[in-house]
């Protein structure tokens, strides 16, 4: 299959997985055990941890990295710590969350509401980019935290995290309150764009390995400031995330991150070239790249992710027929969509595009094409040929 769904998950690096598996066999102890076998495993775990911290740029004293079971979990831990705090002191905190967050953040909000936590959703501009001032002006005396993603998974829009953090900080000082915690979901950003948490003025970040050719089942939470987790247990990871640590996955995470950082500039360049190629073909066949007004080489967007509308054809149907294959691409092509054909799901999948003010018709007929390290110009050409022929055959 021709794989153009890297944003959903990356094709793993076999060597990275193998490295992790070897480590698991060679260091089988429980890192929390007091005996020599456990201590040896713990040493390896710390090696992985410091390796990842080093790859994330210069660190201030007190920075921590906690291994989690997924990027979603790394998002959930700071969210749920708010619930713990709210139920403890009976306060009614307020939080700012962007309207374009991933479900890992968005779907938790109704639960937080039951703990008395009120949310203001901050919408992006029509170009899919969040505006720092809109965070500043939404800040209230009771605003405790801000949740914002660094790179949007549907549009590829790179968000101005440092500016947002600055605006929040300045506004907080102006109204005389302590700076709210800022948590950033960098699950798509890592490996696609430069991202150094310590330089951004933020308090925590969520990462995931399987977007950068690592294994599924491991994420990481970078923290500059401590928090009280809701879920307690065996005390591992400094008490922040209970559960026996996966040395195997942590090692693989460190390994794939090193490789991703080393290849980042070259990959971005190659990605831009593919972006150009893709755009040309799409515009030729009457497809509409999103957001409206995006052009290839536009550095507001990552070249690796592109949503594109094919008016007159439902996104879900298009994904289906591309997957099935056609003469131009008999092996089938993998892309994705948030748009769904069913009445119930009709609105759920297109929240991000609609938050940008995109008309329903375009959101409904959009698919997402995302490239990665192994994507070549041939893949783009095959996709364009298949899309052209299928679009012609199936558009209403």
């Amino acid at each position, binding site marked *: 299959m021709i794989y153009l769904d890297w944003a959903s998950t990356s094709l793993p690096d076999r060597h990275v997985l193998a490295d992790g598996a070897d480590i698991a066999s060679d260091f089988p102890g429980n890192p929390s055990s007091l005996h020599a076998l456990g201590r040896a495993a713990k040493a390896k775990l710390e090696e992985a941890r410091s390796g990842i911290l080093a790859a994330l740029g210069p660190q201030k004293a007190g920075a921590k990295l906690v291994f989690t079971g997924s990027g979603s979990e790394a998002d959930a831990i700071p969210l749920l710590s708010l619930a713990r705090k709210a139920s403890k002191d009976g306060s009614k905190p307020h939080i700012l969350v962007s309207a374009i967050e991933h479900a890992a953040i968005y779907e938790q909000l109704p639960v937080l509401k039951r703990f008395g936590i009120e949310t203001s959703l901050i919408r992006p501009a029509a170009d899919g980019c969040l505006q720092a001032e809109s965070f500043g002006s939404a800040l209230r005396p009771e605003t405790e935290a801000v949740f914002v993603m660094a790179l949007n998974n549907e549009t590829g829009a790179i968000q101005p995290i440092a500016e947002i953090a600055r605006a929040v900080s300045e506004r907080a000082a102006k109204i005389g309150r302590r700076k709210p915690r800022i948590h950033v979901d960098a699950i798509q950003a890592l490996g696609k764009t430069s991202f150094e948490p310590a330089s951004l003025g933020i308090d925590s970040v969520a990462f995931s390995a399987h977007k950068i050719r690592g294994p599924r089942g491991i994420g990481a939470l970078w923290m500059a400031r401590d928090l009280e987790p809701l879920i307690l247990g065996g005390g591992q990871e400094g008490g922040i995330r209970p559960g026996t640590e996966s040395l195997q996955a942590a090692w693989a995470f460190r390994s794939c991150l090193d490789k991703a950082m080393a290849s980042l500039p070259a990959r971005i360049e190659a990605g831009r070239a593919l972006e150009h190629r893709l755009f040309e073909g799409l515009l030729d066949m009457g497809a509409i790249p999103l957001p409206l007004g995006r052009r290839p080489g536009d550095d507001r967007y990552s070249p690796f992710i592109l949503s594109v509308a094919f008016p007159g054809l*439902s996104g879900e*149907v298009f994904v*289906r027929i591309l997957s099935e294959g056609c003469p131009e691409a008999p092996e089938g092509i993998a892309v994705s969509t948030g748009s769904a*054909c*069913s009445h119930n799901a009709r609105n759920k999948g297109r929240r991000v595009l609609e938050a940008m003010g995109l008309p329903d018709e375009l959101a409904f007929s959009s698919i997402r094409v995302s490239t990665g390290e192994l994507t070549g110009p041939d893949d783009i050409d095959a996709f364009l040929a298949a899309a052209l022929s299928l679009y012609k055959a199936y558009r209403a």
Partner: protein
Amino acid sequence: MEHKALYLVKVGEILLKLGNRREFENRLKVEIRKRLADIPNKVDYQPGRFFVAVAEERATEAENILSRTPGINGWARTIRAEKNFDDIAKAALAVAATSIAAGASSFKVESRRSDKSFPLDSFEISRELGHLILEANPGLRVDLHKPDFIVNVEIRDRAFVYGNPAKGLRGLPVGTQGRGLLLLSGGIDSPVAGYLMAKRGLNLEAMYFHAWPYTSKEAHDKVKDLARVLAAYTGGITLWTVPFTDIQMALKKGAREDLTTLMMRAAMMEIAHAFATKRGDTCIVTGESLGQVASQTAQNLRFTQFPTDLPVLRPLIGTDKEETITMARAIGSFDISVRPFEDCCVIFSPEHPLLKAELGREKAAYEALGLGPLIEKAIEGIERLEIPFAERITPPSALR
């Protein structure tokens, strides 16, 4: 068979006339034989009932089959005892114990004896057994009018003892009413409609309209799984899949927007009619319920059924959704029906559908669409899938 599970099975609708009764029982014999084919069994037929014996390990399967065969009123696990009082008493106490464990507090004993050489007569048997059961169960009392359970004793070539029968489906054996064509979709209603008609003795084959790529393979698989559920009741079923995409597209292009669903249902009925008459099916069955969706107002039903003069049987026409859901859960189709795979892409559903079709006007519009050649092509492309009878209903799929 060493350790046998024995069942007494009661059959027959009370109001059947004598001539019909014979056909009924013959038909039921065929069904039972077919459905028990995979389980080594011995069946002993008598008027109005029969005994089924299977190995103990196959008891649960046999019970499932008995519970899902239309025409059976009830069935009871039976103990076969030697024709001496001690053995019969042991059996009677066991039957009583089971019922008491299930919460019964009153009982009576009914005995029948066709072997007149047995030392005690029916009255004496009942009395003696009654005493023993009371002695062994102090809290229990006798109630000759409305007991919680009855201990039945029959003395024939052997002695048979059994308690209250479990309820069967009742109804008429599948096939006694010929065969009908069920319009089956992935929704909650049509499988229940099929089940209700199977209970009335209608053999069924099912027709599903598939519009790939607008409907997914998962939606098709869902319908196949629903057909498997029905097969457990009908004794096997044929699923006919109609390639409906071209017609769907033609309607989207050519029909007025508020009429698309109605035209689609009329086209489905036209295909169903042609196919059913060719196959010798006597009727069409749908899951329609009055007023449940826009296309199911009385005026709309009149229009959508115009292409056929076969009776369109709608067992759910007066049933509300909650009742239908209760039945769907009971027959095992509900969890499958709620899998999130639609059989009609939302692009084909009008925002504001017409609620009251006018027969003459809409018929003219339908004819003007000239769907004839597309309908013929769809019928030619129909695919057949045989779903054999299986005791096991396919388990519901994993959570999405």
